[in-house]
């Protein structure tokens, strides 16, 4: 069984760097540093620290986290089923719940590394402007930790969607609609329950780690409600990660691999 489990690790790693999704992920990882570099070189009165924090806030720990998790979460669940490769995977010496656990763990770790690269490159690109970033590595590592938690939660949710819904359309709709209405709208336009979005919990964790507890202008949208502190946010994200991990494993155990002919 250990041998088979290691086989899944190797297969998952291979899947991460194969196909079009790898190009999409590379774009997501490299686009923010590219634009940060452009802004640093050609922008007027651009402070590298503000630029770096701005990119973290508006891109890396928001769209990049969600989109990376979406691409790989859907690929490893309904994508494998649609491609016909799930039939091979689920006829193995490893129970389905463990297959999902291995795939998610490996993918989350790899995406966290990708996020680290994204953050570091963004910081270095911001340094092309005039000024400095006093604690670049501290900020990068802190953001990677927080972003990693966000990746685990999002990945768990998207894999659950891919396992529960029979069609790619259904899975994508279930994945994207809450992301848009709950995460993006609620976070950008804070109203009641805004403290329960994944994004605001990540931002709550960042506050003491990167911003020394000061709500900089980046936090302008969250001045009027209670932003979870580090403890509350880490608890909330851990709870969500646990819930979605379990639901994805349970969904995998109950998922029939039907194939296209069933439709």
């Amino acid at each position: 069984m250990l041998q088979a489990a290691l086989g899944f690790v190797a297969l998952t790693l291979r899947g991460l760097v194969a196909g079009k999704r790898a190009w999409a992920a590379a774009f997501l990882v490299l686009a923010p540093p590219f634009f940060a570099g452009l802004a640093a070189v050609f922008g007027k009165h651009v402070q590298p620290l503000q630029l770096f924090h701005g990119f973290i806030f508006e891109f890396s720990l928001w769209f990049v986290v969600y989109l990376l998790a979406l691409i790989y979460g859907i690929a490893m669940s309904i994508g494998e089923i649609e491609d016909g490769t799930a039939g091979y995977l689920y006829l193995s010496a490893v129970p389905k719940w463990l297959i999902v656990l291995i795939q998610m763990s490996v993918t989350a770790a790899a995406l966290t590394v990708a996020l680290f690269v994204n953050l570091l490159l963004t910081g270095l690109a911001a340094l092309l402007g005039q000024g400095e970033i006093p604690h670049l590595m501290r900020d990068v590592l802190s953001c990677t930790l927080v972003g990693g938690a966000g990746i685990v939660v999002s990945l768990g949710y998207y894999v659950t969607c891919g396992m529960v819904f029979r069609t790619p359309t259904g899975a994508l709709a279930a994945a994207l609609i809450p992301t848009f209405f709950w995460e993006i709208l609620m976070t950008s336009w804070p109203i009641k329950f805004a403290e329960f979005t994944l994004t605001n919990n990540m931002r709550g964790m960042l506050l003491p780690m990167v911003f020394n507890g000061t709500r900089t202008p980046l936090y302008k949208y969250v001045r009027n409600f209670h932003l979870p502190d580090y403890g509350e946010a880490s608890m909330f994200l851990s709870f969500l990660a646990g819930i979605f991990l379990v639901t994805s494993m349970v969904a995998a155990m109950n998922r029939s691999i039907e194939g296209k002919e069933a439709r």
Partner: protein
Amino acid sequence: MIVRAEHLNKWYGRVIALNDVSVTMEPGITGLLGPNGAGKTSFMRILIGLMRESAGAIQVLGERPWNNPKLAVRIGYCPEHDGFYEGMTGRQFVTSLARIRGVKDCAAAARRAIDWVRMAEAADRKILSYSRGMRQRIKIAQAVVHKPELLVLDEPLTGSDPLVRQELIGLIKAFAQEGGSVIVSSHVLHEIEQLTKRIVLIHRGRLVAEGDVRHIRDLIDRHPHTVEVKADRPRELAAALAREPEVVEIRFDPSAVWVRTPHPDAFYAKLPKIALDAGAEVREISSPDDNLEAVFKYLTET
């Protein structure tokens, strides 16, 4: 027995894929026949544990297949549709699948399986560049790499050219001769006919018949059989045959008479005397019903 299904049902929403299928399959090669959409693939996927039955029960090699990894590695499965990690070479593909099935020396096992399907030369090429026949063979290689007791092949011969088809038939027979059991599906009866005489017919999710060809023919004896009689005086022979109560339909051309009869045994018994009385010399008697295609047609159209 290798498979025992009792009142097996599978439905997708309101669509019934399998309807109260009860069947047992013995070791050896068993052919699963039915037109496209008959429920063969659904049956096979339940059988190997990829799908859960909606109702009923199934046992494969004495165990329930759903969520049973221990049983899964005793089965080899070759799906109908191509699903590959296209960026891999054939060798990487087979080795990876051997590893996740817990094979200890997976590289050696993959080499053996690849040699067995005669893909050694192309094994290090990317699957993306494989022909249809190569893809079929590499799929069979992954199905046998872990030395399964039961091989489940979903339409393995579809789309193959005659040469590849003969090679694949040879491989399937060789697997069975080495002691393995095979369940192979097809919607083309003569393909199965070359592999086995033991068949299970499925149509519209229902089990239509099971057994060997002769047994199935016995089941359909109430339906007219076609008998072709080649004779030198077909017109006279046809006139004589038309008076017989066993004959329900008759047509002829200058070389032969075709008769449809629901009682072929009685017809065969009477034919020599009828031909003698009509002064016709019978050169050859054949029944297209001996071909499985006709049997299948009878059973599924009624």
